């Protein structure tokens, strides 16, 4: 659990009663909303969030306040969407936010909706989070009963309705235009941009889509001020970030730390290092779609947007996957390529066909039927996918594929040389083959 002194988002994590309105209110909850609706103008809220340096925590890292500023000033019908379709492999932080502290996200959503002039907000939760949807719906009901939602909120004249929308199993709906299409009641296939959703989104009206973790930070920022938030972190990566850590470390879980903490410190002091008998081999730092880094390349990298970019990877969603020495990297990339192949929405040819090619070639290598040409073919298929599709799903498959191949090439080559699989002898689960 979070042990940092910067507990902006995680102060109620792990607490059984943290999701209750009474607890949230007793700890200062909805005070930020009272202050905002008690006399602040929407543009003041937008300016404060912009000045705080808060960046989108879903993966793209785009400044939240800047995104809000793209909504046309004369727009009469604006929609606000909270993206809780958390499905990037390795990521489970939004689940913690909504499970342990749904009111913080709800309050953040109301303030954010006010800032952009929305009268209807959706919280889009992935369908697999069944229990969580009930929990958030209960919290929304509580907020309605307390007068934080509905007509004339807290006597301010501001109206906002909120709908908890249940997804139904589609990774692609985490992409903001896929998510919007999904709520419109069609396949969750991403749209061509521009126009961006802030100009023409849901029902072709201006729409803001923000990640749970981004909106959850908004009440704190409004209460403590932009400067206090910007004082945390680095010059360009401001504030705190939730990291969801999986794999064989002593203490996996969700942690809130200031941006910029070196990986070594986080790994040793928070995660407790590897479980006994395991050695760190590699880290996928920001969810499965970002490039993998071998242990020696990540150890001294500060965990912030810029430093991770310079190191050749990305901060992404903060879904940190710890890979132990005992793992077979070709087996792991097969798992990931199966995932992207399975989740490609099929709209763009490079992605629809490319993800299938990558998966089949890796499978062929592991069957011991690879030829030297197959490694070249992997690279060639990657070249034909990267940056050539409507949404970043193709890139998301290419980045791990290329980096696994580049950083752990001997593990691929040995399969060709010996022409038989090495490492784990267990077959891929039957019935799951394409």
């Amino acid at each position, binding site marked *: 659990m979070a042990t940092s002194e910067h507990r902006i988002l995680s102060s109620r994590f792990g607490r*059984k*009663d943290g999701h209750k309105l009474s607890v949230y209110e007793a700890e200062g909850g909805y005070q930020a909303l009272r202050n905002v609706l008690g006399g602040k103008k929407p543009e003041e809220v937008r300016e404060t969030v912009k000045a705080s340096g808060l960046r989108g925590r879903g993966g793209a890292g785009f400044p939240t306040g800047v995104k809000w500023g793209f909504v046309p000033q004369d727009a009469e019908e604006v929609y606000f969407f909270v993206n809780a379709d958390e*499905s*990037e*492999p*390795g*990521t*489970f932080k*939004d*689940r913690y936010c909504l499970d342990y502290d749904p009111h913080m996200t709800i309050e953040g959503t109301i303030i954010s909706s006010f800032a952009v002039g929305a009268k*209807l907000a959706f919280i889009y939760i992935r*369908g*697999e989070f*069944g*229990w*969580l949807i*009930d929990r958030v719906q209960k919290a929304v009901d509580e907020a309605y009963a307390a007068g934080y939602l509905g007509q004339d909120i807290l006597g301010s004249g501001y109206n906002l309705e909120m*709908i908890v*929308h*249940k*997804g*139904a*199993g*589609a*990774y692609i709906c985490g992409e903001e235009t896929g998510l919007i299409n*999904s*709520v*419109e*009641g*069609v*396949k*969750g296939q991403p749209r061509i941009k521009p126009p961006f959703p802030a100009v023409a989104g849901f*029902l072709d009206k201006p729409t803001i889509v923000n990640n749970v973790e981004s909106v959850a930070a908004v009440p704190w920022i409004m209460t403590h001020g932009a400067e206090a938030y910007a004082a945390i972190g680095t010059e360009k990566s401001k504030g705190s970030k939730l990291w*969801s*850590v*999986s*794999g*064989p470390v002593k203490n*996996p*879980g969700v942690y809130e730390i200031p941006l910029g903490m070196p990986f070594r410190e986080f790994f040793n002091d928070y995660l407790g290092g590897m479980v006994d008998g395991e050695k760190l081999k590699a880290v*996928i730092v920001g969810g*499965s779609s970002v490039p993998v880094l071998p242990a020696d390349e990540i150890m001294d990298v500060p965990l912030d947007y810029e430093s991770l970019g310079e190191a050749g990877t990305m901060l992404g969603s903060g*879904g940190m*996957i*710890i890979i*132990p020495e005992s*793992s077979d990297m070709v*087996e*792991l990339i097969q*798992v*990931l390529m199966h*995932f992207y192949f*399975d*989740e490609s*929405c099929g709209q763009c040819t490079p992605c629809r066909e490319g993800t299938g090619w990558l998966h089949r070639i890796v499978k062929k290598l592991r069957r011991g039927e690879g030829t030297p040409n197959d490694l070249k073919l992997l690279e060639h298929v990657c070249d034909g996918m990267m940056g050539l599709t409507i949404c970043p799903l193709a890139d998301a498959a290419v980045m791990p594929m290329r980096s696994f191949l580049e950083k752990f090439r001997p593990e691929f080559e040995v399969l060709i040389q010996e022409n038989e699989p090495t490492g784990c002898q*267990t077959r891929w*689960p*039957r*019935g*799951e083959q394409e």
Partner: protein
Amino acid sequence: MSKSIEQKDFQLSAETLASIDGIIEKYPTKASALMPCLWAIQDELNHVPEPGVDLLMEKLDVTRARVHEVLSFYTMYRTEPQAENVLQVCHNISCHIMGARGIIAHLEKKLGVRMGEDTPDGKYRLEGAECLGACGHGPVMQLGKHMHEYLTPEKVDGLLEDLGKGETPRADTDRELEE
């Protein structure tokens, strides 16, 4: 075609019909209510049969193609009756590293089915699932609305024992009882 028979047998409770009308009321356009309406039908019947599609075409003023497109695009909607207990084991990267394969092999042995199959008595279905968003708690399995986490063969045995007795096993995400 058995459609007419199915049509005759198709019946939704008054609560579900009312909830569908409530959803349509709440959503900004009729068509945008499609996903939650499909959920309402599936929640009652455990799948969405063709007459359910007919109903939504009429209520939401959408084409059959559009309803089918949504039904087939999203993996959680089912158009055929489901087994009583659908066990979905995450086989993505974090759970894989933490031993999901062993859990799957154990379940295949215990249930006598392979991944993607139902037991002959229709009591269990074993499926693989992509990342369930519980990576730090792996290996994990989804059963109904809940997650069963930190799975071991022993834990799986206990879970199957509960299900065999017709009891709902205690899920890691179910904290309601403690409240």
